[in-house]
């Protein structure tokens, strides 16, 4: 009787253990920062889509911009013994102890979108991030190619002073245009990554540059500032996209709307699909034990009016931007 029960119990356990392995369905915990911006919301929805595509069970924990919530979420993922943990770290330091716990539990951790302090390099499997210096380079290369040999005065709308993304996007753009003597940044001010400030700063650029006549192109560190700048140009009687070329970064839906209306020229995508490459890396690691490189760089794709902006707008606007 007891022997029979024991046998039955062990058989059930064996079956339970065997089942997930047979279906190969992964459970992954994702500690997301929160809904700090439209891009972040899009990242969350794309992550869900990518997980569903691969039949992965993705558990998302919203940390509401607090590291302590992220640490709590990771601990709870470890307790649930998930197959892997995705982490979009809100800050770069203070992860060592919780990541050690994950390592001891043999749960691989993949960083999404942001990196952490180098001291913790051996504590995670890989980091999937975009290269913001490269994004600036792509923008600069496009402008150089489009302008050709003509002299071109560029005005630049920088991101928030002190933000590493702003510094990197500036650096990349400067590197790209340094090779072309005819391209010159004549004015550069911060628009704090917002539409309102982008508009205000562009208004002053237009006044300072003879009503905008001497401006050949605008480069904005993000699309939102460019949307504001486009309004400022229109109100000054200029034709953005024609009188003044525009190139910005992020590829949010509203810039495609402007592009479809002929008021914007180019944008470099900061893809919200960080989870896709991360899921592929985890699948390869689990199946064949392939260790991915420490850094997986996402593509910084350039979009122009030739890419059917209206269609992209329609496909992107539902993502939560």
């Amino acid at each position, binding site marked *: 009787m007891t022997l029979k029960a024991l046998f039955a119990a062990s058989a059930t356990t064996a079956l339970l253990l065997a089942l997930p392995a047979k279906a190969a369905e992964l459970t992954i915990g994702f500690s997301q920062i929160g809904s700090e911006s439209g891009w972040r*919301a899009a990242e969350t929805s794309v992550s869900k889509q990518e997980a569903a595509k691969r039949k992965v069970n993705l558990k998302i924990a919203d940390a509401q911009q607090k590291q302590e919530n992220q640490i709590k979420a990771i601990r709870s993922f470890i307790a649930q013994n998930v197959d892997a943990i995705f982490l979009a770290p809100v800050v770069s330091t203070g992860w060592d102890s919780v990541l050690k716990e994950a390592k001891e539990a043999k749960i691989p951790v993949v960083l999404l979108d942001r990196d952490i302090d180098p001291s913790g390099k051996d504590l995670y499997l890989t980091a999937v991030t975009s290269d913001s210096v490269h994004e600036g380079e792509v923008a600069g290369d496009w402008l150089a190619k489009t302008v050709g040999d003509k002299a071109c005065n560029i005005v630049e709308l920088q991101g928030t002073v002190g933000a590493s993304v702003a510094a990197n996007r500036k650096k990349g753009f400067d590197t790209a245009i340094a090779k072309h003597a005819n391209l010159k940044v004549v004015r*550069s001010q911060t628009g704090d990554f917002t539409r*309102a400030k982008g508009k205000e700063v562009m208004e002053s650029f237009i006044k*300072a540059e003879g009503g905008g006549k001497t401006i050949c192109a605008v480069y904005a560190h993000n699309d939102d500032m460019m*949307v504001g700048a486009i*309004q400022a140009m229109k109100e000054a009687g200029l034709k953005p996209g024609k009188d003044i070329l525009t190139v910005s970064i992020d590829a949010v839906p509203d810039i495609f709307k402007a592009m479809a209306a002929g008021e914007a020229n180019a944008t470099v995508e900061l893809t919200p699909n960080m989870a896709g490459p991360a899921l592929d890396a985890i699948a390869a690691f689990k199946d064949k034990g392939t260790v991915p490189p420490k850094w997986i760089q996402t593509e910084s794709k350039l979009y122009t009016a030739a890419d059917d902006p209206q269609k992209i707008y329609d496909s992107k606007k539902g993502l939560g931007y």
Partner: protein
Amino acid sequence: MTALLPRRGLAQILALIVILAVDRVVSPQFFDLRLQDGRLFGSLIDVLNRGTPVALLSLGMVLVIATRGIDLSVGAVMAISGAIAASLADSHGLPVVLAEALGAGLVCGLWNGFLVAVLGMQPIVATLILMVAGRGIAQLITEGRIVTFTSPDLVWLGNGAILGVPVPVAIALGMLILTGAVVRGSALGLLIEATGGNARASELAGVGTRAMILSVYVWCGVCAALAGVIAAADIMGADANNAGLWLELDAILAVVIGGTSLFGGRFSLVLAVLGALIIQTMNTGILLSGYPPEFNLLVKAVVVLAVLLLQSPKLSGFAGVMARLRRTKP
């Protein structure tokens, strides 16, 4: 007029003239004006137009500060009203949109006023609650995204013109005249000042201090809501994360530059608005100057310090003593 513009306005006017002159030096075309699509166009117009939100905030803030209070929630109220206006703009008419957005500001003001006047909370703590929670409420309304709209009526509120004057500037001027007429055209202003000067004595003298405090917070909320609608109309969208961010500090600064004491008891509407214009004249000048953005805040701090030093009674006393000493020396 003398009631609106006391003699102590000299320092502010002087400061504004000096900053305008500096702007003229860094940007020779600063005073150029032309018509563009039936709307005046030039750096001076930018100053007025961009200064409008802070000027509106300072109109409410100055009354709150006159009662010895402070309202830290105005930036968040701007975000809430902007979010409401943008969400409703494409499905409702302008009157409904305005009523809802300004109504929200009124409710926010009532909440602050209730906490301060009825529950007796410290104003800085009471309004801090809405400052933090308000932005969250705005984000809930917009679901964290930038809500855009195309309603021409609401867009006109931000980008239109009346006889060449941008609509926001006309609204701010209208609000200044309205507020001035109400508080200085009656004894209301005096009662507000009495409440701030000594609430207990005023209470005993028959002033309804509780009603006074409640009403200034309500007015402050309405002004902030109007500023929020204009800010949203300006960019044709509501950006709950950034609309009005830190503007409460600019509004307080405008009031202080306008010579109103944070200890309450007296105030000047015109000088508070002048303070807002001084801040914006400086901001526009910094943008026109072409200095690297790393200097923006530093320049701002130095100019504000200079303007406040200009007003300091101790310093002008010190200057007087120095002048007398020089005169007595052989």
